[in-house]
């Protein structure tokens, strides 16, 4: 009963969200924030992957920006240097990044907790250094430029208005796919691994295999987001994929409540609205305030702002319903 009611509520919420998203980019609504929302959409895709990996499966990654960057760089290089069709490039990027994740997966998951964090951090940095080399060999010293727009037939995504819909179409599809996964046998297996690896093994869950699979999935998400990023900015440098970028991604995931698919939008959203919009008013002090907010949120809401808000909302509703049912 409660479950059904909950889910019906969440569907309502999702429907509202979708409508809002469709109307958002029109000038009479949130038009002047179109590009900001594109960026949010792109980062949401990466964050969802991270939520699946960290929130559901409980495996830390401090190197996720590397996958994000691989998508961007492979797309950039294939389209500029080799003139490959952008969509093919995006596909190739996803496959290559996924394969890479698969290869590193089994060794890296012999580590747990802090040690896993360290290893992923190290891997991320190595890839980041590699990116700087790619600049030298495929573009200008600090980046690759001249990346074409994406296009379908004659329809070119050459305005932020158009790209907005492209990005969010991708984003919503990925969110739905992820939600389906979470609510499935696979999703339960992932959460089981988070809950207790010993118990998971005992009921026949191949823990390592699932860890690797989910890493690959999150890597593919990140890669797709990276490709979209490359065709949006049309310039790829190493900067957006460094260690702090990986941290930023983790922050988004955590603020979004880690174990919550739709929280990812919230996480990516708040983080970017904060850093690209609100904090700009504070000039040079913005980083200081950003750091402060980060610490405060982590101290009082380790399970994330989104979850907290949802809890409050839930309680209010339940209380209301109880009152309603009282004779």
């Amino acid at each position, binding site marked *: 009963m409660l479950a059904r009611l909950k889910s019906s509520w969440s569907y309502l919420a999702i429907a509202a969200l979708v409508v809002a998203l469709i109307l958002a980019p029109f000038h009479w609504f949130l038009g002047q924030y179109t590009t900001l929302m594109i960026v949010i959409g792109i980062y949401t895709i990466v964050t969802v992957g991270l939520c699946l990996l960290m929130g559901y499966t409980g495996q830390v990654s401090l190197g996720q920006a590397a996958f994000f960057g691989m998508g961007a760089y492979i797309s950039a290089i294939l389209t500029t240097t080799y003139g490959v069709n952008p969509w093919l490039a995006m596909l190739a990027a996803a496959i290559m990044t996924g394969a890479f994740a698969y290869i590193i997966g089994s060794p890296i998951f012999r580590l747990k907790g802090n040690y896993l964090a360290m290893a992923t951090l190290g891997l991320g940095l190595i890839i980041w250094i590699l990116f700087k080399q790619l600049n030298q060999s495929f573009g200008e010293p600090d980046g690759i430029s001249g990346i074409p727009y994406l296009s379908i037939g004659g329809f070119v995504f050459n305005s932020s208005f158009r790209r907005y819909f492209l990005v969010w179409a991708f984003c919503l599809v990925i969110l739905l796919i992820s939600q389906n996964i979470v609510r499935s046998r696979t999703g339960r297996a992932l959460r089981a691994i988070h809950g207790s690896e010993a118990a998971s093994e005992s009921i026949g869950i191949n823990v390592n295999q699932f860890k690797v699979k989910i890493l690959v999935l999150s890597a593919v998400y990140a890669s797709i987001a990276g490709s979209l990023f490359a065709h949006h900015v049309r310039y790829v440098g190493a900067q957006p994929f460094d260690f702090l970028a990986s941290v930023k991604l983790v922050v988004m995931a955590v603020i979004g409540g880690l174990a919550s698919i739709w929280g990812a939008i919230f996480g990516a959203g708040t983080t970017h609205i904060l850093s690209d919009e609100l904090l700009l008013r504070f000039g040079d002090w913005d980083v200081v305030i950003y*750091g402060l907010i980060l610490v405060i949120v*982590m101290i009082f809401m380790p399970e994330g702002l989104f979850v907290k808000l949802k809890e409050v909302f839930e309680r209010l509703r339940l209380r209301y319903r109880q009152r309603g049912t009282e004779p």
Partner: protein
Amino acid sequence: MSSAQFVQYLISGITSGSIYALVGLGFTIIYAVTKIINFAQGEFVMLGGLVSFTLIYRAGIPLVPALFLSILIAAAVGAAMYLLAIRPPKKASVVSLIIITIGVAIFVRGIAGQVLTKEFISLPYFSSEQPIPFLGAHIDTQALWIIGTMVVVTIILHLFLTYTMVGKALKACAINPVASSLVGINPKTMALIAFVLAAAIGGIGGVVFAPLTFMSYQGGIMLGLKGFVAAAIGGFKSPLAAVFGGLLLGIVETFVVAANWGPFTSDYKDAIALVVLLFILLVRSGRLAEEERAG
């Protein structure tokens, strides 16, 4: 390469190695006691340098007292960090603690940039700027200061941990917090001490290498990462291991440069440091698993 060159490389490696080692020590102390990777460690180093610069050139305080004062300030910041940011959260996960330390790092960095200076700063040499010839190579006097400080700090820390009451308590807490709390050691106090120690050592580091390698408010990040690698190579176990990790890292770096693989060598050397890190982590992973089963 000639023997003189070889010596020169070694000296250079040991110098940067000592820097990494000092940062690594901080990581290790905090991790051993609290199981927290403190990504703000590099910021303590930065503070050491920038604060002493401010005290000397803005407040006109003479060198020596300024140095000690700035070390104290760094330590104070460490204490504040623990009390205000690390202790409060109740059931914080590995991830949220990591984020907290990074948040603190960003905060401290920002404040330093706004309040102290955004310029690159350097401190006067502690002694003559004339390098000392040694086996056909040249040693910067400040480099000797750095290496010396690193050695002294390590020895003092070692003695402190083995012979003082507090030190033993710290060790016990690192090995088994539950048991040590049973025998009346308060893990929270120990954690506080660990943070203060780490911050102080970071400050000392900043103070001794600001004269040789210049510092800016943003300098903490990369130093922090290098020190982190040093500590990780050392396995976050013992201070000595961290020092070993630092020196290894520094020496490997210089000799990679000496080998000179084309134009990107200096990037490769960073990459190689990280590869070493990964390799060691994975080799160790087997034993880690066993430890977990035992525990």
